[in-house]
């Protein structure tokens, strides 16, 4: 996975260099005698971070250390007359895997070729939709591993290598994101987080790393996502469409030796706006599992309907509460159950609620937050308490935990029970 990321990164850099080079030549011709770089308004920022954490329970498939890393992020941004250029990359040394990594988060150019058109091409972070840590129509890659081991929430979003074209009109706006080669989630593979392995019928981790057979062909295995949206009196209405693949493994090869990413099409809509003293949102998505339209194929995920309703309000000074209710409905449940090969069956309906509480104290320098997922149908819970204190303008310290519990070892959050961890971090930003 790392090497494939590296290859993509190189091609992106090459693409950007190809775009930049003629411009650089042109610029130097125009400003004869002046250095191109002296004309470049480059903003340089970033941070240095140390983060460490441990499991609170013994996990026989994983190390006790859940996270232990030194990270340096460099963010270079430049805006020129014809567009913007951005590079943002993380270099980090990881004591859990005992390796060093370079993770290019962004490497893109932004252009405005027409008054009503924006274009952003290259490696970028993409987000849309209305959920709070629940995603229905946002099918851009997520990094669940980073999320569960206690990295900053920013890392939940993994980068896409894509081109985003935005068109703006009086009636509505349209975003089209084309990803020439499928960008999957950084999913739970057993490398850092133990999980329920249905083939083995037990929890597993480093002893059973998930191997995948992924759509990997440039332009052949592409993804396309669209959003048509409009702001009506500050009520934000959007329609979404996606054609691609299940972002985390959604099936297996016939020999059940590799996980697969079957075809997926998603159609959905959302609405967000003020309701009473707060903000309300509703979102809906139809997940069409295109490789298993009938629902009979045991090796491919069922089609689903996904619904979300949420509400956020400031309930006291500097205290915000957000609640959400989310429902996942399997559409061919009878056929799924009849064809089930192994393991306990999923429920037809997965109900999930979330509660967010955020309190700011000490002139907003201290932020205490708790985000809780609770599923009454799976009977499992995932809690994310976090305390962050800004010691100075540049320095912040934080501590938090990822707490999982559940009645069963195979449910969505219940399977991660042994990964319950606490962490602490220190970040110097510049």
């Amino acid at each position, binding site marked *: 996975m790392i090497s494939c990321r590296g290859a993509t990164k190189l091609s992106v850099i090459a693409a950007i260099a190809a775009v930049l080079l003629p411009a650089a030549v042109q610029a130097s011709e125009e400003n004869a005698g002046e250095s191109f770089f002296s004309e470049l308004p480059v903003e340089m920022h970033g941070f240095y971070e140390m983060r460490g954490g441990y499991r609170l329970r013994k996990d026989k498939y994983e190390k006790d250390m859940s996270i232990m890393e030194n990270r340096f992020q460099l963010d270079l941004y430049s805006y020129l007359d014809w567009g913007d250029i951005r590079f943002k990359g993380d270099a980090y040394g990881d004591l859990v895997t005992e390796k060093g990594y370079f993770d290019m988060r962004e490497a893109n150019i932004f252009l405005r070729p027409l008054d009503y058109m924006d274009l952003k091409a290259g490696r970028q972070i993409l987000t849309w939709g209305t959920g709070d840590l629940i995603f229905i129509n946002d099918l851009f890659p997520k990094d669940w591993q980073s999320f569960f081991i206690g990295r900053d929430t920013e890392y939940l*979003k993994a980068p896409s290598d894509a081109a985003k074209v935005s068109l703006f009109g009086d009636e509505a706006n349209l975003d089209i994101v084309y990803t020439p080669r499928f960008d999957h989630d950084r999913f739970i593979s057993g490398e850092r987080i133990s999980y329920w392995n249905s083939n083995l019928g037990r929890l597993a981790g480093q002893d059973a790393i998930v191997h995948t057979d992924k759509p990997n062909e440039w332009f052949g295995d592409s993804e396309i996502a669209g959003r048509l949206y409009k702001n009506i009196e500050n009520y934000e209405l959007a329609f979404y469409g996606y054609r691609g693949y299940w972002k985390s493994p959604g099936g297996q090869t016939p020999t059940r030796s590799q996980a697969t990413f079957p075809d997926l099409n998603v159609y959905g809509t959302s609405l967000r706006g003020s309701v009473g003293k707060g903000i309300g949102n509703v979102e809906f998505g139809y997940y069409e599992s295109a490789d298993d339209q009938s629902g009979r194929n045991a090796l491919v995920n069922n089609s689903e309907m996904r619904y979300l309703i949420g509400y956020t309000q400031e309930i006291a000074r500097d205290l915000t509460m957000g609640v959400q209710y989310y429902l996942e409905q399997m559409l061919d449940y009878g056929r799924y159950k009849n064809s089930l090969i192994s393991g306990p069956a999923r429920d037809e309906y997965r109900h999930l609620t979330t509660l967010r509480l955020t309190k700011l104290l000490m002139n907003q320098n201290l932020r205490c937050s708790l985000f809780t997922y609770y599923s009454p149908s799976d009977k499992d819970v995932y809690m994310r308490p976090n305390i962050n204190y*800004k010691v100075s303008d540049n320095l912040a310290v934080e501590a938090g935990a990822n707490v999982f519990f559940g009645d069963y070892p195979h449910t969505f959050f219940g399977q991660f029970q042994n990964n319950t961890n606490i962490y602490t971090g220190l970040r110097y930003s510049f």
Partner: protein
Amino acid sequence: MKSVWKVTFLLGMTSSLVAAEKPDVQAIVNKANIVAYYQGKDGKATVKMKITNKQGQERTREFNILRKDVKDGGDQKYFVYFQRPADVRKMVYLVDKHTDKDRDDDRWLYMPGLDLVKRIAASDKRTSFVGSDFLYEDISGRSLDDDTHELIQATDKLFVVKNVPKEPDSVEFGHYNVSIDTKTYVPMKMEFYDKKGTLYKTIESTKIETIQGFPTVVKSVVSNLQTASKTEMEFGKVEYDINLNDSIFTERYLRRPPREAIR
């Protein structure tokens, strides 16, 4: 003869001044409100804040602000682009300010690391703005309809208006007095008294400049007498009537701020 003319002239001036000294308090606060928050039809500025707490620890905030009036004295749109401190750099705060009594402002926050456009559910306008001693309402302006106004003092230099909230339970103060310059109508000083009548917070305009003909507060300071903290705010690169397009105050520019906001 000449001196008689002079005297008559002076008297005439004085009497006209006397006539002007009994203005309607509503007219004063309306005019001061326009001067403080609605100069020109739009504008931009670079804002630097220095927050100093009781222990002497300093924190800074730096942001660029774009403003466009929907209606003079009424609704406005604000675009705030953060530059400092580093952890909030590139965040954008968009406000659709509504002066209607029953309508909360619409606010959005863009978080660049996540490419996330978030709706802010903050209905309480008496909360601190970016952790400073300025409250959200001090920055965007408190609706004139929220208070009753009484002219308690009028000198050659200043009108002093006492403002009493119509809904005392919705705010932390008992009343506040505003001293308004009689010539420019710039609010020079605001003094907030708690419900027992003790002065606990002042906001002073410490430097005024006339920019494009508009008297503009370029330096102000809030002192919180209870917590002994203070915030100094300085405006630079102030420009008015720059013809900001309405589209700047939309999601398009939230995700990718306009040059006017970055520079």
